């Protein structure tokens, strides 16, 4: 019941925002009025000139008439016919007068329209993304370790409200508010996924971002779920980062002032991904997260490009705040230090002439996790504990072929050593087909086969996903979407 009321409140809020939304045409109306007014002035000037010409012609005609004294009362003669030139000028003048009248009416209408009080004229750009996933998994969650049930499942994974706008001449702000189903209760909960300010005018090729945002690590960690090239985030990112690279902090990006593209990013913040996730009592500096990425790009040919980067994430200490992992053998591992390094590579063939209709993309990331855990082998609170360092590798690699503007087919290979136990290995093989009905409406059908080795205690399973993602409202093509 409580959850139902919450959901209604969220829906009503979203509807209220859209009722007052306008895409800020006031500025456009002002410009149009100005253009129309300028055109009107030009037309009026033309009329004056035409009238002057007609007056001159009339004067010439009068001067050419015979004297009245000479006539005995000559019969009334018809007015001399206008020459072809005079007729054309008269016709042009009438047309111009008509056009001026029409222009006056149009300007009047536009001015009246602009007088209306549009409350929403100062609203930011607003868009809403919805993402639904219908799935079937051959095994239950107790056998797969998934946070979604086995069998048939319908998951409204995202209802994402995006807001963006200029703060002032020096910065932009944006927010992403996402409502998704709580994995435990199934009820929709809204949370601020991102809300950050980003500078636009710093010198020395710097950009500073601060707030809640997805930190730049690798290539796909900071991409929202519905924008991934496949249905689910790769296993290695889910397990080593903890899903999206959400952080509360500050990030600085530097573009090297050289002709070749090299981008450097460093950041510091609290939480990164899913850990550390507890507030804690007193946070020392070494309990924050530090991350960085260096990336570069090459045009191998006009149609083939390569983008590569290296990333690092370091949480020196997670005292009392680290994630707690219960192992299959009953032992408990508490994360005390996190270190993840990664290398990413994307090679793309995208013929310039056909770039909307054809491309082939190979993307891959290799990660190494070197975490320290406090190991409680017995699992009994207060039992003997000792530090354990675990080094694990993981990677994903995918190939996506766009064979038409609307159709993409692809395959994905996942492989991962458990970051808590590197002898526990998982692989997944996926194939998908995406139908982009339009730019804002797409369906994706994906099959995934996941295998585990015996250590995890989990079972292999088959899964089919049908994902439907859609967008309404404003949709900007940010730098991340390249």
């Amino acid at each position, binding site marked *: 019941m409580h959850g139902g009321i919450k959901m209604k409140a969220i829906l009503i809020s979203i509807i209220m925002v859209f009722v007052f939304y306008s*895409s800020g*045409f006031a500025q*456009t109306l002002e410009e*149009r009025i100005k*253009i*129309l007014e300028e*055109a009107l002035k030009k037309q009026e000037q033309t009329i004056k000139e035409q009238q002057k010409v007609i007056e001159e012609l009339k004067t010439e005609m009068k001067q050419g008439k015979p004297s009245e004294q000479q006539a005995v009362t000559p019969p009334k003669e018809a007015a001399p016919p206008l020459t072809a030139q005079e007729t054309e000028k008269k016709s042009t003048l009438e047309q111009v007068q008509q056009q001026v009248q029409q222009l006056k009416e149009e300007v009047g209408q536009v001015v009246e329209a602009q007088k209306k009080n549009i409350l929403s004229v100062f609203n930011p750009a607003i868009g809403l993304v919805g993402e639904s996933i219908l799935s079937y998994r051959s095994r239950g969650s107790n056998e797969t370790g998934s946070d979604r049930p086995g069998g048939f499942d319908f998951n409204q994974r995202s209802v994402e409200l995006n807001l963006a706008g200029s703060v002032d001449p020096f910065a932009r702000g944006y927010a992403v508010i996402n409502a998704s189903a709580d994995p435990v209760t199934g009820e929709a909960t809204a949370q601020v996924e991102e809300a950050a300010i980003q500078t*636009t*005018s*710093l010198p*020395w*090729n*710097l*950009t500073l971002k601060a707030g809640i945002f997805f930190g730049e690590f690798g290539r796909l960690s900071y991409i929202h779920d519905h924008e991934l090239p496949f249905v689910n985030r790769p296993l290695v990112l889910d397990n080593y980062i903890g899903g999206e690279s959400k952080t509360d902090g500050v990030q600085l990006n530097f*573009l*090297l*002032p*050289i*002709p*070749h*593209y090299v*981008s450097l990013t460093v950041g510091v913040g609290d939480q990164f991904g899913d850990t550390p996730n507890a507030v804690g009592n007193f946070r020392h500096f070494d309990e924050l997260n530090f991350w960085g990425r260096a990336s*570069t*790009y*090459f*045009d191998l040919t*006009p149609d083939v*490009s390569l*983008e590569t980067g290296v990333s690092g994430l370091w949480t020196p200490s997670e005292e009392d705040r680290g994630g707690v992992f219960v192992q299959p053998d009953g032992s408990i591992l508490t994360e005390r230090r996190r270190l993840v390094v990664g290398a990413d590579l994307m090679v793309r063939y*995208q013929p*310039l*002439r*056909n*770039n*909307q*209709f054809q491309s082939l993309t190979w993307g891959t990331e290799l990660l190494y996790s070197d975490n320290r855990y406090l190991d409680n082998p017995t699992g009994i609170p207060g039992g003997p504990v000792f530090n354990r360092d675990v080094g694990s590798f993981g990677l994903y690699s995918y190939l996506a072929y766009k064979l*038409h*503007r*609307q159709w993409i087919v692809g395959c994905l290979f996942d492989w991962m050593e458990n970051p808590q136990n590197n002898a526990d290995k998982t692989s997944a093989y996926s194939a998908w087909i995406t139908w982009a009905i*339009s*730019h*804002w409406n797409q369906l994706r059908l994906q099959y995934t086969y996941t295998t585990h080795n015996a250590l995890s205690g989990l079972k292999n399973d088959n899964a089919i996903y049908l994902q439907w993602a859609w*967008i*309404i409202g404003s949709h*900007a*093509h*940010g*730098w*991340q*979407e*390249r």
Partner: protein
Amino acid sequence: MLSIILLIGVFCAGARPAHAAKIRIVATLTDLADLARNIGDDLVEVHSLATGVEDTHGVPMKPSFVPMMNQADLLLLVGFECEHAFLPGLLEASKNPRIQRDRAGYIDCSKGIIPRDVPKSTEHYAGDVHPYGNPHYMLDPVLAKTAIQNIYNALVEFAPQYQGEFTRNRDAYLAKLNAKIAEWEKEVKPLKGVKFVSYHEHWPYFADRFGLDYFGTIELRPGIDPTPRHIEELIAKMKVEHVPIVAREPQFPERVPKRIAEQTGATLITLPIMPGGVPNTETYIKMMDYIIHTMVGAVQSRK
């Protein structure tokens, strides 16, 4: 200490005086780049993000554009949100305050042009509409003169000491263009009232200028590929109205336009929408020459 010195060196190497030897211009599309070269001549160094073969709405956001834009003095764009699919992201990555939206170096070449086909709604049922009107005014050479003036004004404002040179170059180019416009207006007489369809709505300004009847588009809506029903309906209407020309822009696949042409008996022609879109159209004038010659040739060959 060595690292700090090297870092300072990198910063200094990147810094440049306010007015370097040449004015660095980045144009989004090749037509604006060509105009800028003609007006600026030796005083400018012009780069175009597009090469001419791309869809104007789908120029890829390549990181290799970023350093170029980072160093630009002026950014020339068509405007009317023509570049909405790639320019905002590139501007964000460029970190160049001079050329950000509405700054002095952000030159919207549509200023002064009254747009056609301003949509009543920007809801997506209408497709990927341009909220400020059809942006493809550069295919009308008379309206292109407004873009020339906007580029000229921007150059003069940026480097007033070269106003004399810019004025001479502009006037020389306008004289050349005006002569070509007069020539084209004579050449297009066979096109008066001729109906044609194209893949995307690139041609309303061109059709208006040269007296053609722009019958429709193969796309269902802007940015929405045609459905089978739409193709059948278009074919039926074209047969009733005896539409003789199907114009395909080279960035769209040939299959559907070819099928429509075959089923209606129309002549299929390929027309560039930017200089460089097809061979031998490297400049704006050459591109317009090609478009007009091809259209006139297609109509005359049917007679």
